[in-house]
């Protein structure tokens, strides 16, 4: 197991490095100049050159990549030339916003998805089970940005029940919570379906296992069996699903953040790509890639712990 873990972490590091190099090279063949954007319309050619030097853009490409990786290894993401602040500070601040959004989405999706899955499993093959099944597939299929647009249109613009944009006044929890509802709804909806289906499937598997059958033979009511014994086991795959799902979550967070004009890592990346703010793009990408690789590594490792077959496959 230890060997597996080492191998997995090694792979994770290699992936991050390759991803950084790949992105760095892409960014540097991109047309467009951060200097024109940073310095504004009144920049002179000399000023632009000066800024290039400051940003290290005049050095050979390889030198730039290596020095960047070296800094990252030491936990230094560099400075943002727009705001003169450490990139790490900006990125982590935005990351918090995204994590709160992702967490809120996943939480409500689980709160609804798990009971739905259990219900389906208990009443398997009934009409209502099928209905839940169709509902689950349906919500998985619908693009989250369409859900975001529709909910913005109906709940914020037409009915004006909820705020349309932003993340709310900082420090005012109620306000922030209200701003969270629509984006979290848009991101989480599809996950209700995922989780319901997954819980149903693993629940059915668990319900067929011996100790559950024994419990049933003792005459325990089905609901007790489901919620006290089976659920604990059935929920594990859901946890690992979340690990692999983080990339999808961040992707849908980009749309939710743009539609609802929320601060967050997705919007940060989008905005900084648009303005060619390389230090911020790189910082944000490194952090989110690490996050992604970390979560897949953890979920894979949990999987491997539970299922020895996985270990051999690597």
């Amino acid at each position, binding site marked *: 197991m230890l060997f597996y873990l080492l191998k997995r972490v090694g792979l994770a590091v290699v992936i991050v490095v390759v991803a950084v190099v790949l992105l760095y090279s892409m960014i540097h063949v*991109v*047309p*467009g*100049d*951060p200097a*024109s*954007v*940073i*310095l*504004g*319309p*009144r*920049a*002179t*050619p*000399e*000023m*632009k*050159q*000066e800024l290039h030097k400051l940003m290290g853009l005049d050095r050979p490409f390889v030198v730039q990549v290596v020095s960047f990786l070296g800094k990252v290894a030491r936990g230094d993401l560099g400075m*943002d*030339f*727009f*705001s*003169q*602040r450490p990139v790490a500070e*900006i990125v982590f*601040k*935005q990351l918090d916003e995204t994590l709160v959004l992702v967490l809120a989405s996943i939480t409500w999706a689980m709160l609804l998805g798990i009971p739905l899955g259990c219900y389906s499993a208990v009443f398997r093959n009934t009409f209502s089970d099928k209905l839940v099944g169709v509902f689950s597939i349906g919500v998985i299929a619908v693009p989250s940005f369409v859900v975001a647009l529709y909910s913005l249109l109906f709940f*914020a*613009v037409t009915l*004006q*029940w909820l*705020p*349309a*944009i*932003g993340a709310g*006044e*900082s420090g*005012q929890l*109620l*306000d922030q919570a*209200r701003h969270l509802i629509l984006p979290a709804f848009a991101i989480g909806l599809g996950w209700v379906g995922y989780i319901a289906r997954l819980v149903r499937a693993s629940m059915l598997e668990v319900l067929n296992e011996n100790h559950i059958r024994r419990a049933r033979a003792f005459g325990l009511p089905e609901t007790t069996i489901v919620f006290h014994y089976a659920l604990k086991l059935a929920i594990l795959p859901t946890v690992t699903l979340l690990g692999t799902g983080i990339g999808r979550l961040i992707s849908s967070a980009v749309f939710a953040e743009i539609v609802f*004009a929320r*601060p967050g890592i997705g919007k*940060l990346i989008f*905005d900084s*790509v*648009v*303005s*060619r703010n390389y230090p911020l793009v790189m910082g944000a990408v490194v952090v989110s890639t690490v996050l992604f690789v970390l979560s897949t590594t953890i979920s894979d490792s949990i999987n491997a712990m539970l299922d020895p077959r996985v270990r051999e496959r690597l």
Partner: protein
Amino acid sequence: MSKPNMQFSKIRLSRRSFLKASAASAGWLMLPGLGMHPSWAQDTRVLRVRDYGDPQSLDPGIASNLYEEHVNAAVHNKLIAYKPGTKWEWQLEAAQSIEQLDPTHIKFVLKPGITFTNGFGEMTAEDVKFSYERIIDPELKSPIKGDWATLASVDVTDRYSGIIVLSKPFQPLWMTTLPYMGGNIVSKKAVEAAGGKFAAMPSCFSGPYVIKEREPKQRTVLARNPEWKGAPAAFDEIHIFPIDDEKTAEMGFEAGDLDYTRVSMSSYKNLKKKPPKNSVVEKYPSLYYVWLGMNMEHPKLSDERVRRAVQYAVDIPSILEAAYDGVADPATGYVPPGLVGHRPDTLVPFKADFAKAKALLAEAGYPDGIDLDLEVRNKAVYIAAGQVIQAVAAQAGIRMTLNLHDSGSFWSLGDESKGDRWKKLQLVLNRFSSAPDPHYAAQWFTKEQVGVWNWERFKNPEYNQLYEQALAEADKDKRDQMYRRMQELMEASGAYRFITHEAVPVIYTDRIIPALRPDGMPLLRYFTTA
């Protein structure tokens, strides 16, 4: 919800929820919404405004964006400042008096008792000297160096007075230098202590407000300056939110998150017809200018007849109707109406003339039409305008391909220092901002700017000569003639089709009285409560 001591924004939140809830249970909460605000007296008054960009540099000597100036103007002082209102005028700010002694000498006397925060002491003529001379110091590499292009020195005569000495007369000084970005006065001691420039956050302020907090990309918070002795600031705090997209800002306003914002031209009519509760919608003429530019050195466009064909194939009325919702007027050049140098008319009529365009194309050797690329910035209004240009020009046999660019890519399209893209550039839908003096716009189209901001690569000796002359010309009518002629030269080259100056519609809550420049831009320090 029923704590009596609430913040302004909290109350407004409750008001919104209230409108949906039953009337009896929380009736008192509605008071602020009705325009009565007894609670303001004991609570924090916060003004929440939106700006289109996030300040990058807050050192007034280095800042060059309008949204930076909006902050700087509230936290620093200038000798003279723009007067809120509908006419471009200036009023005294830090100066007690200011007068032009002769074309190259300006005498000023400071008001005594203006202090810098953080113990940096009283503002003196030394600070004025330092603030203006540092801008032309090559060491600082200030982007606004051009505003002080002919500054020779500032001579201090006593503690409060001094003389600004110019090497050559410089007419734009009174409208675009002193009351604008180049006019902010900083503390010499503080800047020197900071090593020559303020890095992230200035260490002292002198205006009615100070910068309390900067959350990059989220907001800038200004707070009342306790040491300010002038007319008291109306708000305890001003929160400035950087929101690039106007539609987003409109939604934010309707949701009650903002007190003042510029809105999009396409929403103006609807907002005016049905303004959100307790709000005021107004429209201001703008200084921006939008035009279709043509790269004169591109092989396809080097023939003047082709360029003129494009001029005739662009239909201004339909662009204004579709992309600007009929809110904006056509432009005749880069100087909007009401300013020196405004042209009353154009050579090519606003309405497209397909027959003429086709004839010119045929003459130039393109009887079957021509394929051209049009570069457009990736924003709703330009995409709409681009599609109208494309659809209309097709009727004259000009087939355009629209290429969208984000701002990073767009702003380096014609930049020679950024590779070979300028050679491939054909048509570009461009828009520059300006200031209330024609010189400001005129400077980008000189020979020296070719490959920098002059992407049409327009080189005209007469233009350059007039540009130099106009800088020094004191006679208003003569200046007027000169700038008119310069714009005519541009249009006659065929490389420019001026489209519009746009318009600046704004919306604000009736709880505040905004103080705006004639072009609708905010002068935050003069905002008050209704």
